[in-house]
């Protein structure tokens, strides 16, 4: 822990310098509705703590959580299916890649039309944004299993299932954690975009409402909260990763 602090010290000092610069610049400009100072944002965060922490943060986290779970289930299932069958791979892989060229933010308003202001339109945006990196990364992980290792296990008389369990799963595990670490911030972004476009609650929705009231600090406060939540979640995943993956990149 001490070591980690020491390693990150230059970054922290630099960040602090940037914040100071921001503070000075914003104070000089003196137009809090456009550019609030960091201190003002923190003050606003404190003032708005009740609606933010009790209503909007839980709403956004629900969307993010449901979206991530669906993405993980969908992504893992697709990856395993594509790894298991050449036909499925030829059928799905191009479609999965093409699905990424759809500008999700542009068609998200349609989802609101289809699914209304409830959570499902946001969940759909989240899923569309995150299932792709999960599918492709986990698929690559499954493919990274060495042919020689699979053959060795075959000479021991192992079935396909055993090979999957004993080689493919451990090979894909580091990839899986990379995918989750990528997907977590993206899912928060997806949820916020969805809420921004039309919702009854959530940090994205709250931020937009503050915008209409020309409350600059009020726009930033939920964004700070979103970023903090994403960082915290990635941190938790990194801890889990350290617990479960004791090797990486050794051939």
């Amino acid at each position, binding site marked *: 822990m001490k070591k980690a602090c020491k390693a990150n010290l230059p970054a922290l000092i630099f960040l602090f310098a940037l914040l100071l610069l921001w503070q000075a610049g914003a104070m000089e400009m003196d137009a809090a509705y456009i550019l609030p100072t960091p201190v003002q944002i923190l003050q606003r965060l404190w003032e708005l703590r009740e609606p933010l922490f009790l209503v909007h943060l839980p709403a956004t986290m629900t969307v993010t959580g449901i979206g991530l779970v669906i993405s993980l289930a969908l992504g893992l299932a697709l990856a395993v299916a594509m790894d298991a069958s050449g036909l499925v791979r030829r059928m799905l892989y191009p479609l999965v890649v093409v699905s990424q060229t759809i500008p999700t933010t542009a068609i998200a308003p349609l989802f609101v039309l289809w699914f209304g202001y409830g959570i499902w339109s946001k969940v759909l945006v989240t899923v569309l944004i995150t299932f792709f990196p999960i599918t492709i990364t986990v698929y690559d992980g499954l493919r990274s299993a*060495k042919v*020689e*290792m699979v*053959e*060795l*296990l*075959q*000479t*021991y*008389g*192992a079935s396909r299932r*055993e090979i999957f369990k*004993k*080689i493919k799963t*451990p090979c894909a*595990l580091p990839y899986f954690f990379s995918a989750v670490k990528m997907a977590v911030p993206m899912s928060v972004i997806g949820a916020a975009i969805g809420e921004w476009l039309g919702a009854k609650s959530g940090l994205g929705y709250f931020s937009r409402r503050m915008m209409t009231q020309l409350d600059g600090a009020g726009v930033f406060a939920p964004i700070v909260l979103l970023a903090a939540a994403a960082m915290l979640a990635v941190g938790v995943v990194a801890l889990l990763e350290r617990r479960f*993956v*004791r*090797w990486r990149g*050794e*051939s």
Partner: protein
Amino acid sequence: MSILEFDKVSYQYPSEDFDIIDALSFRVEPGSFHCILGVSGCGKSTIFRLINGLLSPKAGEIKVGGAPIAGRKRYCGYMPQKDLLFPWRTVGENVALPLEVAGGLSKAQRQERAEAALAEVGLAGCAGKLPGELSGGMRQRAAFARTMLTGSDLLLLDEPFSALDFLTRISMQEWLLEQWQRLNKTILFITHDVEEAVFLSSSVLVVEHTPIRTLTEIPIPAPFPRDRACLGRPELVELKERLITLLRKQVRP
């Protein structure tokens, strides 16, 4: 009874238009140590892949222990060129892999047998380490212990020492001969190193040309147990030269 028997076996790779193994017949007696000696790419590894069932012959029959291998499992122990220790498993868990796949033993029993096998190859106390913590020679010995736990009497070793440095390689060769004499197994050993083949084998099986139609058996006139000093004896020096000449004919620079 022969432990291994090839009866007019042929094999053709789908991408090639000839049989790389062409009506090959040979037999191996139990308890012997043969090196299959040939230049790189001559098809000697293909013979192993036919024996361990990773490839199926186009024609002919392979028998291990008197029975055809088709449909059988776990009749030979195969040790590939790379040690292929799984980096996410401890050395002990790696060595226990064949037992795990075969099933029928509890985790504690498997661990006990893995530790015993490691002790036999001089790696007592290494069961809890990760493969990355072992040196090249230690990794090969762990891989050998894993091959032993397949429980088969026929061991197929595919250039297991080729990636080791020279000094480690020669001590591993001496070590392997000790293991062979102690364990009473039949060993087939692929190599392209003439000196290694002469030092290890009771007789060398030479691949003289590709496609492989015959294996030329050349007995090594030296008794076991051997040490490296015997390699300096005139008849072995002469034999080595003969083998080198035989192989060089096939190498086009």
